[in-house]
């Protein structure tokens, strides 16, 4: 089994570095997998036979900066492999605040949740007429569990 190491990259170039590692593997044959989670900016995980291979590969690689000496255990990166749903902790009736988009800063009540699309439908609290708006799960922050609580 391979060992997992953290490679520092230029921010925004994580996917490019992953592709460059794949290309480099055609020469070395000692890299097994590369992981570039969206949540981590400027870092990727590279699984290979040993750290020396990775150090040699990044020496002339554009956008790759360094490799951390400490090996990472698979349990430590499990939360990146199986990212939780953006609507996992949202329930119908909750009061939320929209954190981006045209209604940023507005408070609203959750009326429907779409688990597959990770979208929620809300009604703005300050609106004169309740108009349902569908937003992405990442665009909201939970304020209250349920109205009145």
């Amino acid at each position, binding site marked *: *089994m*391979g060992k*997992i190491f953290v490679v520092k990259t230029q921010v925004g170039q*994580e*996917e490019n570095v*992953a*592709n460059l*590692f*794949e290309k480099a*593997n055609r020469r070395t044959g000692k*890299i*097994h*997998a*590369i*992981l*570039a*989670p*969206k949540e981590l900016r400027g870092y990727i*995980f590279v*699984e290979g036979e040993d750290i020396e291979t990775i150090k040699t590969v990044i020496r002339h690689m554009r956008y790759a900066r360094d490799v951390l000496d400490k090996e990472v255990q*698979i349990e430590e*990166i*499990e939360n*990146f*492999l199986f*990212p939780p749903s953006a609507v996992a902790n949202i329930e119908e009736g909750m009061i939320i605040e929209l954190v981006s988009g045209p209604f940023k800063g507005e408070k609203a009540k959750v009326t429907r949740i779409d688990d*597959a*699309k*990770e979208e929620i439908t809300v009604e703005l609290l300050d609106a004169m007429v309740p108009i349902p708006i569908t937003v992405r799960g990442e665009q909201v922050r939970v304020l209250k569990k349920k109205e009145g609580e």
Partner: protein
Amino acid sequence: MRACRKCHILTTRSTCPYCGEATSEHWQGYMVIIDPVNSQIARQMKLKMPGKYALKVR
């Protein structure tokens, strides 16, 4: 690029060339599996085929 909703493999097609499921253009996280036999990550993700995958598909 688009990602298969079922197996998460990245493709340019609107249906997955491997499992036939519809693909989505809304995906996050990037993963390259080169050697699934010797990879801990591939084993954890239950992936048996080398290729490029998305971590999360909506």
